[in-house]
């Protein structure tokens, strides 16, 4: 299977790898997937509470190259977006950007779920709706 240049670049030089402090009120964490399924994605956002803008995003992913690239790309896209803008990120945009083959579409779904999970966690912490 030949992967796109963009995918390979995100895989080899992943952006925003790391861990944010879960204890902070303005940090939201999304953890999706399961080791048995071969994919676990953890995506975190740090939100500027005044502007509602995501000022930092980090990820760690256990998975194939497409899963790692999808989460790396997601963190890049998240930075600088408002919560509402972030909620609008669609998995098909990731599929297109990385030219994911059909068998890897679930990796982009996982990334979208991780984004939504992180936002939900942030909102719950801050009692927002």
């Amino acid at each position, binding site marked *: 299977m030949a992967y796109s240049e963009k995918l390979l670049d995100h895989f080899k030089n*992943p952006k925003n790898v790391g861990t944010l402090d879960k204890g902070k009120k303005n940090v939201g964490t999304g953890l999706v*997937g399961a080791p*048995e399924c071969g994919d676990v994605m953890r995506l975190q956002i740090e939100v500027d509470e005044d502007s509602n803008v995501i000022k930092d995003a980090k990820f*760690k992913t256990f998975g194939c*190259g497409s899963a790692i690239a999808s989460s790396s790309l997601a963190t890049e896209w998240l930075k600088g977006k408002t919560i509402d803008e972030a909620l609008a990120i669609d998995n098909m945009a990731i599929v297109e950007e990385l030219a994911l083959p059909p068998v890897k579409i679930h990796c982009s779904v996982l990334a979208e779920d991780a984004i939504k999970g992180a936002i939900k966690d942030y909102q719950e912490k801050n009692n927002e709706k």
Partner: protein
Amino acid sequence: MKNQEFIYLDNNSTTPVDPRVVDTLVPYFYEKPGNAASRNHPFGWVAEEAVDYAREQVANLIGADPREIIFTSGATESDNLAIKGAFEMYKRKGNHIITLTTEHKAVLDTCRYVEKLGGEVTYLDVEEDGLIDLAKLEAAIKDNTIMISIMYANNEIGVIQPMKEISAMCKKHGILFMSDATQAVGKIPIDVNDLGIHLMAFTSHKMYGPKGVGALYVRRKSPRVKVTAQVDGGGHERGMRSGTLNVPGIVGFGKAAELCQREMEAEAKRLSVLRDKLETELMKMEETYINGNTDHRMPHVTNISFKHVEGEGLMMTFNQQVGVSSGSACTSASLEPSYVLKALGLGDDLAHSSIRFSLGRFTEEKDIDRAIELVSAGVQHMRDLSPIWEMYKEGIDLDSVEWQEH
């Protein structure tokens, strides 16, 4: 990409054709283009002579009589011919076949087909180390059992089944013993008479010969075994496999067999030293596990799980420099991890994390040294990226986490 720069550790998938084999077979495309069945001109005679000679070379490798070698298109066809052919030939004696859950698909899917024809198949589980429990095998034998089909060496983990003991059991119960020996022939000494085997499938492209040619060994004496042809036509190969013989392929197969016979003993020793070095160095990393029995194993194979790292992702870190295989679901169309590793009782997580390294004739020590470096670095890179590695390091019990499965 030049071969010399790429480290190929996937020889269980296929082996490069030895240049000495290439030199031997090439003239049979143009200078000696005959059909081995053409009896009336020199082109035909030359081709027939070449096939006869190759048949002897292949037979010699396994201690057989040349008349016991049926040339086919490869091990898959040989497996099909042996299982379907014996089922058809011996259906008056019974309809039950015993095989293993860890067999190659060429055997498993053929058995599934036999079930559709009214056959009954027992798919026996293996133990945690990949080997069979002989008592369980014997307990599975019934009055209507006609054949036991058990692979010589497993393609994914390299474990070698107790062939002599299985053979003795078959003899005792008057059952045919068939083996898919694709991964063993040409790599370790095999003598069909010493083993008392009745049918044995193998192929050229796993032993440094060309693709598209294989063989089925069919015993001729004590007892005489027959299989019903599955390909009908001109009655080639003693009526068991029609079709014009692939003369260049067969000539190459013969040469490859001769080279293996001459060199395999020294080669097995050399490769086991290199394999052990690779394994020992990689096992120095924590949370790393060898899959399958290590005492009864092919000398050139190791299958290792790097926990908390996904196999396909790991391979992507070094696949421009090193070629291997993984039992990870991501490498298969089915999105299921290796059924062989799961049959050993491995959790899906460890199956996803497995890499098979299979060395070969052209593997050198410097390749192994470089592979150790690249694979170790890859594992480190992937673990740095892995949230479950981080959780493991923090002492979190991963089994207690509520995962959101997809």
